[in-house]
């Protein structure tokens, strides 16, 4: 087929600018890499492969700050997903990925295909996906029917895909803030498990070996999705609808079963396997060839196509879902085909591995691309970025801290429990099958989700945490706090933190202030990763989260995974028994900057964050975990949004118990302060002395669990006395009520 433009026309008309390739990059490719003008197809391939989404050209210098080695780390960033040793020859494989732009434009399919994409990353490593989490950030839903529709459809998209695949969604987080009004965030996390011997890589090597295409046919959907993700939104985005793909979870279920069958039962047939994600065939094949230090020769006429007359450019850049690329040893093509045939999946050999390092594409009898593999994958120009501290940070440090007064702690607690970010998200999470595969020990609604590992005593804990407000107010401390929060959630259920994945969601990095946010929040996260000994094993970067030049709060999401050594000793979040002693762990100060209370009372957030001593946090976590593992702790809940008041209420919900507490050294407002590094734990009376001794100044005994269903606390100058059933009712009803409202 004739190319849409000649190389000379491309040089002159610069269509690549629309595909997010800069003129500087284009000239570099032509002058320094190819020593000729790239043709239309080649220019398209470069624009996709050199997009931020595929190349991390903007964020790479920042990502290097993350530690990614550790004694349990079998595979760090660079492959489909990270791999972490969990003993007994087993490993967990996990990753989170953002699908923010597609979800903003078409919430149902955007969310569904976000889940589908992350699942392929996991099973292409040779692991069986066993649990998902999500991290959803919406705009305000009160008085906004469109945002309610988007929230409803996003949740339905996540649920329908995961439910059909038969993979439980066991937790996550949902927040609401005006900063996400024009650009919602969907971060999907998945974790798989495998025997270490089955670990696969996305590589292609061995002259003459086959490149096999498996799964759904290629259509025109999602062309330039990767570059779509690397631009910001504007009012024009209605015209970008074609960039969204459509998911078919049934196809993916078959694809998963067939791929795992080959990986587990016939590993000798396979050289490598990779999913076709962003930038479709080109990214999967070029990355595999680069990893295997090989060349590749593909015939695009053999690619199964859903629509007639597709150009080479369209075939290569299509982001049609549910497709995988396999490199199969010569002579085993028919063996592989038989397995896929059983599942009624289409499988075609579309090319061969060569040894000349060239990436060659044939289409309609012509060579439409002939360029060195490394120019697509390894020669991407890193873009130096300017950074400048946002003026608001300077101002915040100088302004006096906002310290509210709360006249009626009980009334305020009820109001807080109804804030959408704090209220029960059961309305959403009960649309997810959280139990399929019958290994879910702790499902949605707790600090972290916990799965047992069948056939062992082990359990795996996992959590997703991000708080854009803190990062907005102070990128470094906010980044560190996201890590501290995730680690607290893992330790709260009695698990040892192992490693993290992340999704880095930011605005346009060409804005020096936004690059500053990215850089400094990653510094905060990286320092916490080093202190907590939880390396980064995988992750993803989503920049350009803006709408009409208004950026989201910088929202790095931490997906942390922990190991439970004995699944029978998972620590519940709920109070267990009347007579148990309640301890408050950590110091409560006037930390209202970025708090839910400030947002609720002021309508916006402001102020500076108190520094966080990561060494202290780490010591506290280790001491608490030791007590939990020694069987001295009955329940643990970490304090986050809404502070102590909300945490106490949540500790009592869905029990018949109450608490009577002496909090006389706290003001009523401090009940809602969001100081970090705090927990509420309950212990048996006979263990109280031992627990106090072990935790020292970090813990304060504040009262007891009672048999009546009331939350009572002496505050400074006030007595809180609320019926827990009433609190639970407002907490449970707030979100369904808002979602169903007509206003």
């Amino acid at each position, binding site marked *: 087929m004739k190319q849409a433009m000649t190389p000379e026309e491309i040089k002159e008309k610069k269509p690549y600018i629309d595909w997010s390739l800069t003129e500087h990059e284009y000239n570099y490719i032509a002058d320094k890499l190819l020593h000729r003008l790239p043709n239309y197809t080649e220019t398209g391939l470069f624009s996709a492969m050199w997009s931020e989404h595929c190349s991390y050209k903007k964020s790479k210098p920042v990502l290097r700050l993350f530690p990614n080695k550790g004694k349990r780390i079998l595979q760090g960033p660079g492959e489909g997903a990270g791999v972490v040793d969990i003993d007994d020859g087993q490993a967990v494989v996990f990753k989170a990925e953002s699908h923010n732009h597609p979800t903003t434009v078409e919430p149902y399919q955007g969310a569904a295909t976000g889940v589908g994409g992350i699942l392929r990353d996991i099973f292409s490593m040779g692991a069986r996906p066993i649990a998902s989490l999500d991290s959803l950030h919406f705009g305000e839903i009160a008085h906004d029917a469109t945002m309610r529709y988007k929230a409803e459809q996003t949740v*339905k998209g996540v*649920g*329908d895909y995961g*439910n*059909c*695949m*038969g993979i439980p969604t066991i937790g996550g987080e949902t927040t609401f803030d005006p900063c996400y009004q024009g650009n919602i965030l969907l971060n999907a996390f998945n974790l798989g498990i495998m025997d270490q011997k089955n670990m696969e890589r996305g590589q292609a090597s061995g002259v003459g070996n086959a490149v096999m295409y498996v799964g759904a046919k290629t259509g025109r959907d999602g062309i330039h999705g990767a570059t779509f993700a690397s631009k910001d939104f504007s009012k024009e985005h209605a015209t970008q609808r074609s960039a969204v793909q459509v998911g*078919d*979870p*049934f*196809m993916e*279920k*078959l694809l998963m079963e067939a791929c795992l069958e080959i990986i587990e039962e016939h590993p000798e047939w396979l050289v490598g396997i990779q999913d076709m994600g962003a930038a479709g065939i080109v990214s999967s094949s070029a990355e595999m060839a680069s990893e295997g230090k090989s060349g590749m020769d593909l015939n695009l006429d053999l690619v199964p196509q859903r629509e007639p007359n597709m150009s080479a450019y369209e075939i290569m850049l299509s982001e049609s879902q549910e497709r995988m690329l396999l490199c199969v040893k010569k002579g085993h093509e028919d063996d592989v085909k038989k397995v896929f045939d*059983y*599942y*009624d999946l289409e499988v075609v050999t579309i090319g061969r591995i060569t040894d000349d390092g060239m990436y060659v594409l044939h289409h309609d009898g012509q060579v439409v691309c002939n360029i060195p593999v490394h120019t697509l994958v390894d020669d991407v120009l890193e873009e130096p970025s300017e950074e400048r501290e946002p003026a608001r940070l300077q101002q915040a440090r100088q302004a006096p801290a906002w310290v509210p007064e709360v006249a009626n702690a009980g009334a305020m607690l009820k109001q807080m429990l109804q804030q959408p970010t704090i209220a029960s998200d059961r309305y959403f999470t*009960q*649309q*997810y*099958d*959280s*139990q*399929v*595969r*019958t*290994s*879910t*020990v702790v499902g949605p609604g707790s600090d972290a989700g916990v799965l*047992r590992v*069948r056939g062992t005593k082990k359990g795996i804990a996992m959590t997703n945490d991000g708080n854009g407000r803190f990062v907005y107010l102070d990128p470094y401390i906010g980044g560190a706090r996201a890590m501290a929060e995730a680690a607290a959630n893992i330790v709260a259920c009695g698990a040892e933190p192992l490693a993290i994945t992340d999704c880095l969601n930011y605005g346009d990095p060409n804005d020096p202030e936004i690059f500053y946010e990215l850089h400094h929040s990653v510094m905060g996260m990286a320092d916490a990763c080093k202190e907590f000994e939880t390396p980064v094993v995988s992750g993803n970067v989503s920049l350009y989260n803006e709408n009409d030049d208004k950026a989201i709060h910088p929202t790095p999401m931490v997906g942390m995974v922990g190991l439970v050594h004995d*699944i*029978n000793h998972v620590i519940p979040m709920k109070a267990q028994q009347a007579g148990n002693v309640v301890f408050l762990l950590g110091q409560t100060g006037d930390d209202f900057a970025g708090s839910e209370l400030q947002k609720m009372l002021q309508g916006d957030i402001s102020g500076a964050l108190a520094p966080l001593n990561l060494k202290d946090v780490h010591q506290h976590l280790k001491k608490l975990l030791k007590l939990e593992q020694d069987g001295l702790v009955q329940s643990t809940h970490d304090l986050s949004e809404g502070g102590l008041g909300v945490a106490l209420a949540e500790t009592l919900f869905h029990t018949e118990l109450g608490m009577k507490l002496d909090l006389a050294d706290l003001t009523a407002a401090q009940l809602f302060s969001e100081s970090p590094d705090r927990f509420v734990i309950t212990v048996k009376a006979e263990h109280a002395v031992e627990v106090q001794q072990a935790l020292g100044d970090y813990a304060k005994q504040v009262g007891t669990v009672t048999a009546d269903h009331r939350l009572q606390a002496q505050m400074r100058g006030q007595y809180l006395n609320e019926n827990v059933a009433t609190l639970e009712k407002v907490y449970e009803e707030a979100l369904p009520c808002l979602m169903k409202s007509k206003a």
Partner: protein
Amino acid sequence: MKIAVIVFPGSNCDVDIYEALHSVCGAQVEYVSHKATSLTGFDAVMLPGGFSYGDYLRCGAIARFANIIPAIKKMASEGKLVFGTCNGFQILTEMGLLPGALKQNDSMQFVCKPVSLTVENNRTPFTSRYQQNVEITLPIAHGDGSFYADSATIDKLEQNHQVVFRYAHENPNGSLNDIAGICNERGNVLGMMPHPERAVEEILGGTDGLPLFKSLLDHGTVKAEA
């Protein structure tokens, strides 16, 4: 006693029911492909939950044409035990072994949560270990679980005591007469929307599903009347 768990394309609770019978109850269980045509040598057959054929067209509507279906019908006609949960129940109605149909939930949402049920008939081979009218808690996880049949069929189901499980307190999907599970007239085919296979171990949150599998294993090849 040897039990078959049928694996349709898109089945995903096959592992759960297999493990409930094998790991928890110690029964002899085998997966059988939807492409097989015989169930010779098996004494009972399980149709698991999931999304057979993606639930495209209508839940269970494509599965009824699978190669294995005649063998399942043959087992039912021989009085052997046939059990379907969730998608398995939907398939049983589509293939005509049980009356009625499962419609989309009234809420139009998928719902996964524990529900209360009463055991309405403990004289079936699947429920003999339960006390009559006992209240139990089992998880549900479905988008299309609203049982519907014409009033004559409903009357007949009630008169024959074919309603085996009924939702108590709260009807989660809009099922007529709060029906959660029914058997055929002979009592050897049971379909239900809740998932007993998810409630067989304390660590998973309860064991109220265990008596169902134990009852089934007690009965083995015994032919029972409703």
